[in-house]
């Protein structure tokens, strides 16, 4: 009899998997590649949700990009030191979040970093090491407190001329949250989204098990991971010095600029990963931790509820928060779990 039950279970297991189709889509937007993968028996429903997601991403990009002819963010930057600019609820929300995290991280993440980012031009044809004087002269423009947000009118203004904001460090996270919301509203409960390395998961896998997320080896080729993290319904966002960089005179300059110094952050961290519920939070926090360094970064994460982190330092030591002890496994022996 036990055998018979086993037999039935085996078959029902198979048929359940078969009714769930995989519907996927790849989109180029927000300066990256966005992958959406949905597991659902209703293909039409999934396709509709993907279509709505694409429209939403385009909307976000049109409002928040600095690489377009026009956007709300560009308008804010052009009117810096002059006029307040009325923005949409979307942009206002993201600006508010970005300012909150600038404050929380004590300026390690700063949404007004754009003048310095532009000066370095990392990831563009004009990437170069600026003169020290150039950096110092622009550093006083970097100050998140100079962004005035008027909650009652949704008007936004930067205090000084020349100041500029860049939501690149947080808009991808917001887009991830919005896609997740749209999928859930369409009654989709099993899916993952990958926005240029920012992973967002919905529920568990089809078989009820956790999603297995690899943490990129910061010293290896893309796709080579050092550890596996098991998550359910969470987002996993990593910041690393390997994403965008250039080499000049044998020295490597990466794209995560420390707003305090104006130079790429060199605090001993080569990769920081955040695991939490909202991707917008994870996006801002992964940058913050990277810039803050191990000790202060850990302190920040531990002060927050429901946020976990994986930090890899340049000596290949890996540090994780208490909440990940059960679900985190190193698979590359050259990295050592240090705590």
């Amino acid at each position, binding site marked *: 009899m036990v*055998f018979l039950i086993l037999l039935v279970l085996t078959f029902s297991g198979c048929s359940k998997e078969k009714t769930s189709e995989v519907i996927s889509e790849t989109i180029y937007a927000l300066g990256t590649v966005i992958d959406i993968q949905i597991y659902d028996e209703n293909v039409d429903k999934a396709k509709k949700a993907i279509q709505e997601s694409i429209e939403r991403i385009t909307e976000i990009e049109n409002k928040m990009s600095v690489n377009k002819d026009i956007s709300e963010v560009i308008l804010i930057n052009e009117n810096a030191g002059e006029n307040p600019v009325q923005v949409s609820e979307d942009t206002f929300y993201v600006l508010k979040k970005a300012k909150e995290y600038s404050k929380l991280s004590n300026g390690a993440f700063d949404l007004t970093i754009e003048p310095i980012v532009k000066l370095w031009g990392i990831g563009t044809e004009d990437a170069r090491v600026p003169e020290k004087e150039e950096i110092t002269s622009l550093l006083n423009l970097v100050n998140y407190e100079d962004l005035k947000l008027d909650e009652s009118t949704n008007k936004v203004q930067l205090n000084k001329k020349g100041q500029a904001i860049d939501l690149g460090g947080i808009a991808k996270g917001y887009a991830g949250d919005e896609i997740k919301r749209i999928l859930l509203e369409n009654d989709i409960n099993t899916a993952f989204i990958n926005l240029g390395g920012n992973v967002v998961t919905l529920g568990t896998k089809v078989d009820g098990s956790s999603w297995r997320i690899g943490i990129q080896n910061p010293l290896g080729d893309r796709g080579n991971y050092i550890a596996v993290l098991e998550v359910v319904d969470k987002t996993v966002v990593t910041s690393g010095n390997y*994403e965008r960089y250039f080499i000049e005179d044998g020295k490597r300059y990466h794209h995560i600029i420390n707003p305090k110094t104006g130079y790429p952050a060199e605090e001993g961290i080569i990769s920081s990963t955040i695991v939490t519920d909202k991707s917008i939070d994870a996006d801002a926090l992964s940058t913050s931790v990277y810039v803050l360094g191990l000790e202060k970064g850990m302190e920040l994460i531990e002060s927050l509820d429901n946020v976990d982190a994986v930090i890899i330092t340049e000596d290949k030591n890996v540090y994780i928060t208490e909440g990940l002890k059960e679900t985190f496994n190193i698979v590359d022996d050259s990295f050592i779990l240090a705590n």
Partner: protein
Amino acid sequence: MKKGDKIVGLIIIILITISLLFLGIYRFINKGDKLIAKIIQDQEVIKVIDLDKVEEPKEWTIENEEGHHNTIRVEKGRIRFIEADCPDLVCVNSGWLSKPGDIAVCIPNKILIRIEGKDDEVDQISY
């Protein structure tokens, strides 16, 4: 044990053997041993390569409408970008792709190489 029980037992054992056999065949067919690389330009698949069937290494250059180019090299079991005129060279720095799920992307030139299927060990990689 009665004779009837034995027959039932035998039938069950035969059924299990057959089902396991089918399961084995199913798994074997679906194992995805094939390494299929897809080259996607501006969201359109422009080339599909069975990496296991590549005999001679080959290099070629793909140009986009704006005149930008990426050079791809393929060898048995692996593929990569070797040269490009994009500013960040993220595509070239991605190195060799040789496992299901591996991906290399050139955002400026909107070209992407991806190996079909999924990594057995992980569902996604956070980078």
